[in-house]
């Protein structure tokens, strides 16, 4: 029964992924005019007397990118009504290559999309994983430690609310101007990752950590307040439950009561927030990546959207959508692990 439920969940996730990427494909191709983009690339390239040459070149480009066929299986023409195109359409071609594990080629970089995504993840994952780890550690550690210290807790919550109200770009720029500024403290590099080619292999992780300090700090400061505030609320709720009073009556210290008894139950509402972090880990942060010049997923997707590099855009957004569905699936499982009253049901 449980296996069936799992299979149902996975089938639902796969269906939802297909639906999301299909809608993305059709919307992105239908709302934006690829011909305009290609014409722009040829703009000023030709003399108008050779307008025929330019039109031919645009057609060749459209053909090379597979954009010269109808978008979908059917199209509507006011004069002739619905027209059926069979398999000769952009969506069919894209879906077929996707089924073969091929995400296509970038228009701009002329490189496989999978390779570009892998490169971007190579930079994004250390940044976001480290930031997520530190955010969760800081949120859980500080919140639990301060949960039974009223004065400290009050100041901590004020700080968390203040940080939460600050936009990420402001936090990142503030850190940059404070810790990478020759007029203030010049402790860290102003931009992300300079060349480490000349460094020894053993030095490279250290250099990378050093260079990632400010970006990671920006992400931690922006993401941990939400976790901490949520956890604090849940912990305070748990402290009102009879089982914590029983624990205290049996001689457990405040710290032991918080860590051993209240925390497990208080984590339950946090699970949703934690699993929300997973797609963000893959998607990166375009703000931090632009400010600190890090070549990660956020910038890759944003640049692809700006330059209408559809294969990269769809590959990036599709990956993030897939990870989001996996995260939701994981949340369901985690709920059942943390509280046996929850069961994955078909």
């Amino acid at each position, binding site marked *: 029964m449980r296996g069936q439920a799992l299979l149902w969940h996975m089938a639902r996730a796969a269906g939802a992924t297909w639906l999301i990427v299909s809608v993305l494909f059709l919307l992105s191709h239908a709302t934006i005019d690829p011909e305009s983009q290609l014409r722009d690339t040829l703009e000023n390239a030709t003399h108008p007397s050779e307008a025929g040459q330019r039109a031919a070149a645009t057609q060749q480009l459209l053909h*090379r990118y597979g954009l010269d066929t109808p978008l979908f299986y059917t199209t509507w023409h006011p004069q002739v009504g619905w027209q059926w195109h069979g398999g000769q359409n952009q969506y069919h071609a894209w879906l077929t290559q996707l089924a073969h594990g091929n995400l296509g080629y970038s228009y701009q970089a*002329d490189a496989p999309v999978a390779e570009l995504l892998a490169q971007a993840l190579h930079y994004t994952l250390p940044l976001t994983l480290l930031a997520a780890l530190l955010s969760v550690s800081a949120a859980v550690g500080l919140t639990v430690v301060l949960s039974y210290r009223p004065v400290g807790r009050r100041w901590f919550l004020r700080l968390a609310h203040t940080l939460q109200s600050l936009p990420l770009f402001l936090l990142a720029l503030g850190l940059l101007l404070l810790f990478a500024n020759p007029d203030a403290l010049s402790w860290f590099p102003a931009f992300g990752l300079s060349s480490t080619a000349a460094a020894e292999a053993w030095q490279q992780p250290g250099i990378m950590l050093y260079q990632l300090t400010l970006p990671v700090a920006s992400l931690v400061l922006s993401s941990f307040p939400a976790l901490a505030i949520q956890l604090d609320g849940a912990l305070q709720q748990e402290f009102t439950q009879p089982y914590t009073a029983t624990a205290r009556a049996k001689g457990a210290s405040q710290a032991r009561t918080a860590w051993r008894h209240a925390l497990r139950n208080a984590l339950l509402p946090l699970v949703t927030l934690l699993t929300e972090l997973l797609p963000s880990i893959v998607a990166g942060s375009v703000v931090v990546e632009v400010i600190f010049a890090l070549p990660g997923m956020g910038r890759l997707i944003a640049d692809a959207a700006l330059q209408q590099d559809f294969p990269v855009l769809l590959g990036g957004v599709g990956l993030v959508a897939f990870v989001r569905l996996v995260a939701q699936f994981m949340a369901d499982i985690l709920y059942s692990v943390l509280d046996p009253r929850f069961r994955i049901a078909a």
Partner: protein
Amino acid sequence: MQQLFARVYLVVLAGVLLTACTSPASSPNSGTVRIRWARDPENLDPLIVSNASAYEVANLTHCSLLMGRESVHDFVPWLAEEFPTVQRPNDSLLLVTYRIRPEATWDNGSPVLAHDVALTLKVMNCPGLPIEKDQAVYGFIRDIQLDSADARRFTLVCQGQSPEHIRTSGDFSILPEYILDPKKQLRAVPLPAMLRAPILPAVQALAQRYQALQVARHPENVPGCGPYTVTAWQSNRYLTLSRKKRWWADALAPAPAQLQAYPTKLVYQVIPDAATATLALRRGDVDVFALMPAAEFARLQQSAEDQKRLNFYTADSYEFATASFNVQQPMFRDAATRRALGLLFDVPALIKATQQGGALPSAGLISPRIKPYYNDSLPLPTFAPKQAVTLLQQAGWQRGATGQWTRPSKTGAAELLRFGISYRAGEPTFETIALQFRAAAEKIGIVVELRPTEQSVLSRQLREGTAEMSIRNFSGNPFSYDFTSLLHSRGIGADNTTRFSTPLTDRLIEQITSTEDATRKTRLLRKFQRVMAQEVPFKVLYFLQYRIAAARSIGQVPVSGLKPGYEAARIRPVQTAQ
């Protein structure tokens, strides 16, 4: 246990700090120049070259036959020994004869010959390769005739008679035959046969060989005969160009400006955000920051500390901001209305607000810096709402009781002076211009709607003629005065987004492009500007300045009014940058 954790933490921290202190990025070698790029080149295939960064790399790693030089306002010989000779055997053909410099060699020591040029043209016509752009730009080169007596001399057979073709025919990177066709199989295939069906086996083999080299990501696989080679490239992070120890032009004494290359290493750092790039420049992490935003540039110029460590340069560019009218819209059909609306732009205030005062107002579409051609008898743009009201009345517009302007249309119905102004979304300069115009227009009763629009949608609207008024930048150069694409009737539906044309302006454009007599050209260009000032299909607001800030440690930076705004190869670092 806690003590153990504390010790481990301290060891890790010490390791991090130790390695951080030995970061190679902070200690560049002497002769190295570090330059900020806003954007990665993305693709270094010489057949594609899709952005300014890629173009810069192509110009440092490859050589063309000719190179545009701003200082002489013309193309000069680069790989070619001298400017080509031209013959016109009939009304439709142009024969352009070049000879390659005898000193020019490839990295393997073999000379650069006419066969290399022929092979390059064959690559640019090779089916299966990304040749669309080359076909559009250089498609007029129909054949190449090699000189049997001189391996360096050749003649390009060009379709058409335009003098522009002479310069364009020498403006593509020459590729090495010894790498792309080592067995010289393509020598037997004439250029016109490249695109003919069925595709010849030798042509298919060339396409396969070229694709196998993966030039887009590995430019080092096809080294050019330029002074630099790509030695490191991490996409969206950095790109390093190293000076060849022995470059053929080193033997030239004195080397002309286009064949000078001083820095031993050029390190390009990709830093998209301008604020971060400014900080990196002030910290000494980069040496050159070109095309700096006006506000950042002014702030640095005012700082005493930054004056000590930085040099500041400006170069008058050939890029200009305009407000264009779609003259096929009924309300913009008459020149008087367009002239009236042009008077609502407060150009000096806009220059101050958007460029911190660093831009040149102009009477027309030729930069005031090009003195021989600029028509200085025309008045500079003025902000005159009262005069605009008078002109609108002369154009038949009447202000009604509601305060709005109307005039009877051809059908008899009242036509309302109400329109939208489109510009690229997210561009603060355009938005400021549009806001200033709307404020001035509303004061005299004209209703203007701001329409920030996504770039490709805007391009389509402009091409299809659905945008009413638009704000854009146009790029020019000091080599060409061909306004065919911008203002000729043949450009309507493509680049002539104002859809303006008259028999007189069409004729003037044709005469300007076909004449090689400098005096006549001057006269025609001045007349053309005068006509444009009357017709106002677009209002030129100002010519932009390129702003460059650079570390004093790298000495003087030769700046240019053409992008990227500097000549990297001609920077002579005076001491080790710290």
